[in-house]
Every structure is written in structure tokens, then in C-alpha cells.
């Protein structure tokens, strides 16, 4: 195949950057190593708040229950006297008197209940979406400035007017969780006194439990309180009420009921969690991965970095090879029939296939150079049959230095702007990972699995320059067997069997039970089992892949110096405002080997398809859409090598039997036992079968770009109809996740059914069928934004400046957000905010505030660039639609002109051919876009970059970091002496 001309591009690799003040491994706080935490006292405080409906979401009224050992000691209400009217206060007072409730003001509640329970009594504070409620209680907030840096990037909330009392610190950890803790006030406390006497009690920072977080970790997702109560079948259920409505008896009943439901959810979650018998307390669980890590702790495994002191250049090498899953679109904007397949638990499967548990349980893991000729020979001779032999996979524990020469290797680059003229470039600095042809440039480290994948894709073996292989030595002596999920039936002995493999088998059993419950008509039981198996899936993935590459970003107020290490042993220093701190179970070798092997699995499937002359429409980490029809043949597709009977370009479609053969080939790689043992790890998804007859049916795919595709069938008139599996339609929502439902007021903002209409309309428009536009098409496109970092709050500086604290946009507040149309942006309107509102009709009628200059207006949409006083034109769903359907696949080229994919490109795409110009080192690819949900703004914040030094020392001309002029004081003095001598 003739390759397109290589394009010169700066490529990026993951960096191993060590901050100057990084704690020495094991990075668990060494000052407190061996210190114990007594856990909370029997006191618990459960509370909930109700707020105003303005963007400030100020506290109106709250309810609480104070319990001791589960027994209710006090129930009460609290309110903000500055927000409630006199009549409302009187209503609340009467209600409290009748119901026998304590009534307190916000200040009294903060001092006499909250801080007394959380700090003085060391009790557990419980809430649903707790950070939001804590922020409502606050009277001031500021960025965290704690010395230990772990909470940097979070908020410090002031709750009490007494300056000697604790503050509450909150920092977002992931989409559904936050670290919450109390600051330690000055003076002596009991823990301090214990240590003065020679004890080892850890400082107490309060105990906080968010039922949304724990429920999400145990049952999957981030359940609402209503959903959680349903899943846990609590006695009390959440009642319905309109937020912000008049305070009356019914509303106060609703508030009290919410508190009771929260308590019952916690009680049910506690009982379930206790059954797991994990050594980590429930208030330390922040995600599914936390449960997986707790299992590792229970096995008495010692973290990798506590046992191994690898040189920094080895860690830099490992990090350089790390890439995520492969997602690409090969056939763009052309409908093609096919079979949708995916790998069963791909990451846990390759973890088990490679036997990576040996690196977790080893006493030490060593790295040794190996003769490159051996690996070169393996690559020269390897075939797809070898890749399907389980014996190969445990030998993939090597990293190789490749001199690229037409190889298809993962490459992180700015594809979207590589072929754009400098003057036309948008400030989008996002990196994408593609798998282009690589030619020339400096050698780069890859996993051996990536090299084999390249060989399978191109037929040519990459040229290997150096090889490093990892070997696990010994076994940690303390490792003990554990009962998975607290069930004796799932006992795992990590000394003899694979922990991850057992977890997947356990999940399969739960799925089988779920199907049985569903068939038997036990809907609540089925929902609980489904949630459990989702949680187990995330736990397996998190433990096999997520936790080993856990790098927690830390924000710095002032730039901090880091040393960026390179695989050749060199390093450079650079100052950055955001650094990364490895998690406790950081073991990058495991993650890179898992991800690399996952890509190899996918490449093997692609190779088997191409050997049969077939093709695929898209792939997404563990799934593949193989172009196929019942009997095979050719399918029209621009750019294809074949031709249809009427002379159009076409590609070959496999028959379903051939696809079955491809699927069957993967049976050999099945590492599982029990009921899973006789299946292929590549499975044909349920979407391919008619739900009524169970017979395989012809489905088609329409892909726009990576992660933007829809699967459909045709009705009798040939019109497309999205395929349905269970109660879900198969279409992606990538790039649309932040938009709120535009149709009738939805009780649940996670209701994504409107996207079915979106895709249905898109398919019909694209395929040339008449389609009635959805009624909401010209409605303003409104997103939801949650304020989770001081940086987010700072964007509301202008809005907050003129308001008292209660009315200001505060941490964890959530708002509606609309983006001005281009002509409005041109006159300086950047972002409009309004109170969060589910009802689209009300959204349009609300007063929207320009975030940057506080002016208010109503929003409207317009197809022409016009200006109307008192209104601001914003982007509509139509605007998003038009942009979405033409979104180019940046990681591929147009086949007609081999230029970067255009919005109008259709057909079989061509991979890029890249020559690496320069190698940049970057940090975590955390997409801050999803954090802030402000598209087109703050583009520079998407990834941490560690730019290499470009300035040279005035004395010796060596590279110096940052803005320095001299590499050292000695060099400066020497140069100074030379100058003095010349003068003499």
C-alpha cells in the first residue's frame, strides 16, 4: 500500500515528572506511617438542605437527625434568617413546635450541631451529595492552602463565625466523589495529647460519608437519592416536591423525609459494605476502584513502590509507553451493514492472560536489558496464529525501543491542527492518540504488544533498537486468601490463582442471577443485581488498569519545580502550576502492559477480518464493527478497493459465518473457568439479534468520527431506526454529555432519551430520508455546570463582586449554562448563566446573567446574526447538530486528497503518516473541558505540559530550565572572571 506523505508533527509522550517536594516512596504520609485512626464515634449527623432558585443557591432551610449508635437523639430544622421571610420563619417555627423538632438558625446549627458532632464528638456526617450541602452551610470560601498539599485545588469553607473552629475542606476527586475533611483548629486536642504521651493516634480530620459516592461505588454510576432508595429497598422513599416552592407543612414533610431516606440508605449501604469485610472503612470509599484497592489491602499486598526503588529513567521509559484504548473511525458518513462485536471484560482478560498478578505479588520487579535480536526475530516471524496462542501473552512483559519506519504505532499528537495553516489554527491544544504510520524521527519506546500489533497491521516488523524486559522475583510472604465480596463461595488465594479473573467470574454469576430475576419478573431484585454487576465490572477494571496508573493532580498557587526524567537517563527541570502525585497502588508497568495488550487484542481481530478481505467501520477500545452481511458480498463505500455492479467504489463485506469464524478463533484465549470457560472472549453483542425471535439480523452502522456512531436497522420503507438492546438504544453521546434534555421537563437530568431522537433525525437526514425535525431543534442548547474548583469560582468573579455571599455562586453549586451565538461572542458576551432549571420552557423565560459583566437578558435562538435589546442569541440544538454531524475524524485523512479529514469527507479513511519532529512530555490527559463544561474556553488547561528547556546558559551554553540565565552559580562566576580578565 502506498503511504501518504509523512506529515511532520510534534508528538507527546507521558512524562515521569517528580516535584521537588514530592514525598519519598512509599508516599503514604511517612510522618504518620504506622499511626492508627480510631474511626468515628457512635454519633452520626444526617442532614439535607433546601435552597433558593437563583444561581447562588443559598440555604433556605435544612433538616437534620442526630443519632447515637443508630438511635435518634435529636431531630430538627435549621434556616437562614437572612433568606427566609418573617412569615416563612413563623411557619417553620409552628411546624417545629407541633412536630417536636429543634429549631436552630444556620449559625446555631453550624456551631452547636455540625461542628460539635463532626469535631468535638468525632461523629460521622452523612448526606447525599454532601459537598453541595456543606457549601450551602458556608459563610465564606477560599482556595485550600493546607501545607500537605493533598487538598490543593479544593475549597476551604468557613462554617462558624468563631475563628478558632474548624473549616471544612473539599476537593473533587472524580466525577462522583470528593475528599472532605476538617481543618485542625489551634490548641491541644485528644489526638495531640495521645501522641505527646507516646501514643500513635492519627490526627482526626472528621468523618464524612456521601451516600451518592458510596452507593455509586457499590452499585455503579452515581445514583440519585430516589434511585438509591429503590435499589436498596429502604422503608422510606423519597417523596416528590418542587424545589424552591413556598415553605409549608408539605414541603417541610418532604425535607424531613429526605433526611430519613438518606439515613436509611446509609444504614443499608453500611450493612452491605460490612458484609464485604474489607479493611478500609466505608467513609474512605470514593469509587469502585477504592473497593478494588481495599481488596488488595485485605490480601496484605505491599504496594509496588514500597518494595521497589526503580531508577527514574526506568519509570520514565514505562510512562513513555503508556497510551489509552484505541478508538477510531475508518468508514465515515457512509452507512455500512455489519456485526458489532466486543471483547468480554477486555482489560481484566488481558491482565489474566499475561499473568500480571505476578508483578503485583512479587517481592521485587526487576528490569534487565535483553538482546534486541531475540525480539526482532520474534517480530519477524510472528503470525496471527501466534497472537491467538495463550503461550505468547505472558511473554509480552517487555518494552522495546523502536526506530519507526512505516510502522503503525500509537502516537499522541495534535492531529486537528497539524495540517492547518498557522494563521488559521484554533487555540485548541488537545492531544489525541491515533495509530498512524510512523516514519523517521527519533526512536521511541513502546510495549512489545504494540509492536506485534503493528506487525499484524502492516505485515512488516518494526525495527528494534533496544529491549528491556521485566521479571517478577519472589512472592510477598504475607499475602493471605480473601473472600471476594465477603462471600465464602468466592474465596481467592492470590498465592495460587488470579484475583481479577475470579472477580470477572463472580460478575458473570451475578449477571446470570440478574437475567433469572428479570425473567421471573422481579424488577427490584433485577435492578439491584444489575447495579451490583456494574459495580463489579468497574472494580475489576479499576484494579486491573485504573489504580496502577492513578496520578492525582495537585494544583499549586505558585509554579512548582519538577524534574522531568527521560528514558536515556537525562532530565530537565521546569516549573508548572499543576503536578501529579502517584496513588498508593501506582504500578505503571501493569497499566501500560494491560492497555498495550488490549490494543493487540483489537489489532488481532482487525487482522483476522482483513485476512478474509473484510473491513471495519469503527473500533472503540474493546469493540469493533465488522462490515458484514448475511451472505457476504460487496458494500458501496467511497475509497474502497472493490466495485459494485454499477461501478461505484465498494468494500468487501464478510458473511456472518466468516464473522463467526473470527469470533471462534478467540476461544483459545479464554482465561476463565466455570460457566465462562466455553465461550469466546470476543462476543457478538445483543444488538445483533432480533429481541423477539432471537435470530441474528442485519444491523448497520453510521459513524462520523471516533466515539461518534449509531447502530440502526431499516424499517419496511428502508428508513433507519436505532437498534435497541434491553431498554437502551445503541448510539454514542460523546460530545453531547453536557447538554440538558431539551424536551418536556424531565424528572431526571440523566434521562438521555432525547439523544435517541437526535440520532434518529441525524441518520434520516444523512441517509436522505425525509425527517421531521424534533420540536426542540431551535430551542436554546443549555448545559449544566457544577462549580467544583476555585478556578471555576474565579470565572464568576464579576458576577459575585456585586452580591452578598449567600447570593454568590458557591462551590458545588450547579447552574444552567448557555453559549452565545458567534455574533454575540464577537461583541464580548462569553457565557450566560442562570439557575439550574429542568423545564426548557422556563429556561427560556428566565433572566440569564452574563457571567463576565453581570448584565441580564433573556435567551433566544436565531438563524441570522441579529441583535434584539434585552435578549442574547445563544447556540441552539440545531447549531450543535450541524456541528456534530460534520465533526471531522481528526485522526485520519481524506482518501481523495490525503489532507486532514474534512467536514464533508465520506468513505474509507486513510491513516495518517507521521514523522515525529519533537518529543514533548505531558501529564495526565484529564480533559478539563468535561470538568468545566465550557467548550471553546480555557483550551490550554486540558493537559499538563512539561516543556523542555530552550534557553541556554550564558556561560557554558548548556540548556537551563525556566527563565534562568546561568546553569549554576559557579558558571556565572567563571564567566564573570573571564570578562574581568579581558578588561584587564
Amino acid at each position, binding site marked *: 500500500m502506498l503511504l501518504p506523505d509523512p506529515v511532520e508533527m510534534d508528538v507527546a509522550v507521558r512524562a515521569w515528572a517528580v516535584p521537588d517536594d514530592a514525598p519519598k516512596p512509599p508516599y503514604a504520609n511517612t510522618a504518620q506511617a504506622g499511626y492508627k485512626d480510631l474511626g468515628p464515634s457512635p454519633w452520626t449527623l444526617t442532614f439535607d438542605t433546601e435552597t433558593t432558585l437563583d444561581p447562588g443557591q443559598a440555604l433556605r432551610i435544612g433538616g437534620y437527625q442526630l443519632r447515637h449508635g443508630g438511635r435518634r437523639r435529636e431531630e430538627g430544622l435549621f434556616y437562614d434568617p437572612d433568606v427566609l421571610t418573617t412569615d416563612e420563619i413563623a411557619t417553620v417555627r409552628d411546624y417545629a413546635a407541633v412536630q417536636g423538632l429543634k429549631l436552630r438558625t444556620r449559625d446555631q446549627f453550624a456551631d452547636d450541631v455540625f461542628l460539635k458532632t463532626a469535631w468535638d464528638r*468525632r461523629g460521622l456526617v452523612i448526606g447525599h451529595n454532601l459537598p453541595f450541602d456543606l457549601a450551602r452551610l458556608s459563610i465564606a470560601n477560599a482556595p485550600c492552602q493546607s501545607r500537605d498539599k493533598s487538598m490543593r485545588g479544593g475549597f476551604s469553607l468557613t462554617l462558624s463565625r468563631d475563628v478558632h473552629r474548624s473549616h471544612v475542606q473539599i476537593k473533587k476527586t472524580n466525577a462522583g466523589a470528593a475528599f472532605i475533611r476538617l481543618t485542625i483548629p489551634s490548641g491541644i486536642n*485528644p489526638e495531640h495529647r495521645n501522641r505527646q*504521651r507516646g501514643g500513635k493516634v492519627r490526627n482526626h480530620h472528621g468523618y464524612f460519608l456521601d451516600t451518592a459516592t458510596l452507593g455509586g461505588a457499590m452499585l455503579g454510576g452515581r445514583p440519585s437519592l430516589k434511585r438509591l432508595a429503590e435499589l436498596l429497598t429502604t422503608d422510606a422513599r423519597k417523596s416528590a416536591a418542587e424545589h424552591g416552592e413556598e415553605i409549608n407543612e408539605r414541603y417541610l414533610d418532604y425535607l424531613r423525609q429526605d433526611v430519613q431516606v438518606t439515613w436509611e440508605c446509609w444504614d443499608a449501604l453500611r450493612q452491605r459494605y460490612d458484609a464485604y469485610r474489607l479493611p478500609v472503612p466505608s467513609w474512605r470509599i470514593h469509587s469502585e476502584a477504592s473497593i478494588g484497592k481495599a481488596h488488595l489491602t485485605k490480601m496484605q499486598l505491599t504496594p509496588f513502590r514500597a518494595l521497589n526503588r526503580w531508577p527514574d529513567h526506568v519509570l520514565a521509559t514505562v510512562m513513555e509507553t503508556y497510551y489509552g484504548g484505541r478508538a477510531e473511525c475508518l468508514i465515515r458518513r457512509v452507512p455500512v451493514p455489519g456485526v458489532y462485536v466486543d471483547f468480554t471484560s477486555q482489560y481484566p482478560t488481558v491482565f489474566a492472560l499475561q499473568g500480571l498478578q505476578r508483578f503485583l505479588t512479587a517481592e521485587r520487579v526487576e528490569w534487565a536489558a535483553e538482546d534486541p535480536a531475540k525480539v526482532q526475530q520474534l517480530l519477524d516471524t510472528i503470525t496471527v496464529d501466534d497472537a491467538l496462542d495463550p503461550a505468547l501473552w505472558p511473554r509480552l512483559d517487555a518494552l522495546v525501543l523502536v526506530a519507526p519506519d512505516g510502522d503503525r504505532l500509537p502516537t499522541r499528537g495534535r492531529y486537528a491542527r497539524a495540517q492547518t495553516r498557522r494563521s488559521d489554527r484554533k487555540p485548541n491544544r488537545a492531544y489525541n492518540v491515533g495509530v498512524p504510520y510512523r516514519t523517521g524521527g527519533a526512536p521511541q519506546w513502546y510495549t512489545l504488544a504494540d509492536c506485534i500489533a503493528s506487525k499484524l497491521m502492516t505485515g512488516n516488523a518494526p525495527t528494534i533498537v533496544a529491549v528491556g524486559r521485566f521479571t517478577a522475583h519472589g512472592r510477598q510472604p504475607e499475602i493471605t486468601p480473601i473472600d471476594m465480596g465477603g462471600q465464602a463461595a468466592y474465596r481467592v488465594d492470590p498465592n495460587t490463582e488470579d484475583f481479577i479473573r475470579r472477580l470477572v467470574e463472580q460478575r458473570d454469576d451475578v449477571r446470570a442471577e440478574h437475567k433469572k430475576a428479570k425473567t421471573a419478573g422481579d424488577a427490584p431484585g433485577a435492578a439491584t443485581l444489575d447495579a451490583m454487576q456494574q459495580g463489579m465490572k468497574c472494580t475489576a477494571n479499576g484494579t486491573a488498569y485504573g489504580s496502577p496508573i492513578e496520578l492525582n493532580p495537585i494544583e499549586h498557587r505558585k509554579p512548582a519545580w519538577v524534574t522531568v526524567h527521560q528514558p536515556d537517563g537525562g532530565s530537565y527541570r521546569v516549573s508548572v502550576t499543576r503536578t501529579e502525585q502517584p496513588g498508593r497502588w501506582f504500578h505503571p508497568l501493569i497499566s501500560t502492559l494491560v492497555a498495550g495488550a488490549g490494543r493487540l487484542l483489537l489489532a488481532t481481530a482487525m487482522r483476522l477480518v482483513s485476512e478474509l478481505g473484510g473491513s471495519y467501520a469503527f473500533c472503540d477500545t474493546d469493540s469493533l464493527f465488522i462490515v458484514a452481511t448475511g451472505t457476504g458480498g460487496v458494500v458501496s463505500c467511497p475509497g474502497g478497493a472493490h466495485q459494485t455492479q454499477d461501478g461505484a467504489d465498494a468494500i468487501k463485506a464478510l458473511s456472518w459465518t466468516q464473522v463467526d469464524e473470527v469470533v471462534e478463533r478467540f476461544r483459545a484465549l479464554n482465561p476463565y473457568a466455570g460457566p465462562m470457560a466455553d465461550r469466546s472472549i470476543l462476543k457478538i453483542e445483543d444488538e445483533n439479534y432480533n429481541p423477539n425471535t432471537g435470530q441474528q439480523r442485519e444491523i448497520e452502522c453510521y459513524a462520523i468520527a471516533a466515539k461518534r456512531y449509531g447502530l440502526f436497522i431499516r424499517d419496511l420503507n428502508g428508513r433507519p431506526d436505532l437498534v435497541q438492546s434491553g431498554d437502551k438504544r445503541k448510539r454514542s453521546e460523546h460530545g453531547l454529555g453536557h447538554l440538558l434534555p431539551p424536551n418536556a421537563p424531565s424528572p431526571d437530568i440523566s434521562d438521555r432519551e432525547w439523544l435517541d431522537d437526535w440520532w434518529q433525525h441525524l441518520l434520516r437526514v444523512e441517509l436522505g430520508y425525509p425527517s421531521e425535525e424534533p420540536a426542540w431543534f431551535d430551542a436554546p442548547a443549555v448545559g449544566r455546570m457544577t462549580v467544583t474548583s476555585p478556578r471555576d469560582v474565579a470565572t464568576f468573579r464579576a458576577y459575585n463582586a456585586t452580591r452578598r455571599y449567600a447570593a454568590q455562586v458557591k462551590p458545588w453549586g450547579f447552574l444552567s449554562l448557555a453559549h452565545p451565538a458567534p455574533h454575540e461572542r464577537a461583541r464580548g458576551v462569553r457565557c450566560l448563566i442562570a439557575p439550574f432549571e429542568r423545564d426548557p420552557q422556563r429556561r427560556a423565560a428566565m433572566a440569564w446573567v452574563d457571567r463576565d459583566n453581570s448584565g441580564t437578558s433573556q435567551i433566544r435562538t436565531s438563524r441570522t446574526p441579529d441583535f434584539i435589546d434585552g435578549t442574547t442569541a445563544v447556540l441552539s440544538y440545531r447549531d450543535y447538530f450541524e456541528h456534530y454531524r460534520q465533526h471531522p475524524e481528526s485522526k485520519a485523512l481524506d482518501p481523495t486528497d490525503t489532507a486532514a479529514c474534512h467536514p464533508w469527507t465520506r468513505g474509507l479513511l486513510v491513516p495518517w503518516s507521521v514523522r515525529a519532529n519533537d518529543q514533548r512530555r505531558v501529564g495526565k490527559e484529564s480533559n478539563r473541558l468535561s470538568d468545566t463544561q465550557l467548550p471553546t474556553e480555557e483550551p490550554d488547561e486540558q493537559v499538563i505540559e512539561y516543556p523542555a528547556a530552550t534557553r541556554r546558559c550564558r556561560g557554558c551554553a548548556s540548556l537551563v530550565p525556566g527563565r534562568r540565565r546561568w546553569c549554576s552559580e559557579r558558571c556565572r562566576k567563571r564567566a564573570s572572571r573571564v570578562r574581568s580578565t579581558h578588561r584587564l
Partner: protein
Amino acid sequence: VSYLEDWAERRDERREQRLRQLGTRTPRCSRPGCNETDPFALTGVDPEIVCYECQSEQRGRSIIEAHHLAGRHNDPATTVDLLGNDHRALNDLQCDWPRHVLRNPDGSPLLHAAAAVRGWLDVLALVLERAVGWVPEFLEWLDDALRTAIGPRWWDDLSWEY
């Protein structure tokens, strides 16, 4: 909130503080033969915890101590003899009295009387707690254990007349 409820609540808070100081949620005097578990009567840090009576014995002091029932400031002359451990528990309770009652800087006779009543109430509550305070929880635990071991109507199976 009744006096006893308030007393129990205050005592819970102080117990939590004591447990934190001792460094364990299940403190016990480490001297062989001594089963003292009241955190107010214990000192040291886990695992070297010892009760005040054992500590006094070790140091050659009497385990009987004089307790100012109404507080030293209210009535320096009137004392009652108590075992050291009980004395510590009562002293701790006095810390929860209103400060002006405990100190009584002006020598108010009514505050003196209040302090004396508080002192007696503390003694009575302590006696109740230490003497029979453990009984309800024990009975509840025993009932639970018998239900699990024998059945929900275990008294029928044991031929008890109930």
C-alpha cells in the same frame, strides 16, 4: 432534655475524648487481674494502659481518695472517701458543670446548694451506671444470642415459664 439524658450525652462526649487520648476504643487496664475498662479511670496510652488504682498501688499510694462532693471551691472541708477509679470518673463529671457553679467565685449559697445536688446526682448516676448500667445491654445481647442459637421463642424450647 432531662438531667440524666444531658448527663449521658455529656458523658459520651467526654468518653470519646478519653478514648482518643488512650488510643483505643476498647481500653482495659493492662495489670493482670484488673478488669477496669472505664476510660475515665484509665491513664497511659495503648497498649500501656493502667487504671489509677493500679497506678497508685504501683507507686505505693493509697487507692482511697478524698472527693469534694460539691467541688473544692464550694466546700473545701466536706469530702467523702472513694476508690481512686470512681474518684476520677466523678472528677471528670465535675468538668461538665457550669463553670460558675463549680467555681462559685462569690460564694453564693444557692450555687453551693446546686453544686451539692449536682455532686449527689453524679454519684447516684455513677453508682447506677457502674453497678447495673451494663445489665440492659447484656440482656439484649443474650436474648439475641439465644434467638440465633435456639429460635425466636427460645424460652418455650427451654421450658421456661414466661
